[in-house]
């Protein structure tokens, strides 16, 4: 399935856009999606990121579904 993934901060800069499209198999997990995003940025040095599904942090083994709002969350620095 094709999924659009939102990117922020250093990930958006490294990718050159605020959204990436990835292709993953049915039953793919959050971890699979993150790996697919990283595979599109070979050679880039990036901080380890978390992933949010539908605006909440999701564990690496959570399944993703078509239509989910998926976002890569690099280390946050609010405050």
């Amino acid at each position: 399935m094709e999924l659009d993934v939102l990117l922020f901060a250093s990930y958006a800069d490294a990718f050159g856009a605020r959204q990436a499209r990835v292709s993953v198999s049915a039953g793919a997990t959050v971890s699979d999606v993150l790996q697919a995003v990283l595979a599109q940025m070979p050679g880039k040095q990036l901080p380890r990121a978390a992933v949010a599904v539908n605006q909440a942090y999701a564990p690496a083994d959570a399944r993703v579904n078509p239509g989910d709002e998926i976002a890569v969350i690099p280390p946050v620095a609010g405050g």
Partner: protein
Amino acid sequence: MRRSALVERALDAARLEAEVAHGGAGAIAVFVGTVRDVNDGRPVTAIEYSAYGPMAERELERILEEACASAPALRAVVEHRIGLLAVGEASVVIAVSHPHRAEALRAVETIIEELKQRVPIWKREHYVDGTREWVHAGSSQVTC
């Protein structure tokens, strides 16, 4: 009572303080986070804050919900500013009130610590030499 927001204008701590004030409050605690002129020895001229807006607002709301659950009489408001901020400007204001000071002080500390850990907000520091860098303090790197 609780309220949180991301805003793109200057923050007004006095207004947030007034928002949580009421006759039952024995203590009001206000925290103001400001842009510092140096980080890790490098002179900073400004900080650019950006956010995953909808999730940041939801996460702020969850943090306030948790704070109010552990101190039911708490009133709490938090505003975080997004955009380009100059040195000395406020990036975040947290105001809480509670009948007792211990709970008020504890709530402010918990809210700012949780905010820094969880809320999807990022900052890019602008340095005197014209360079800019994302702040990912203490994070490990992955090489793709």
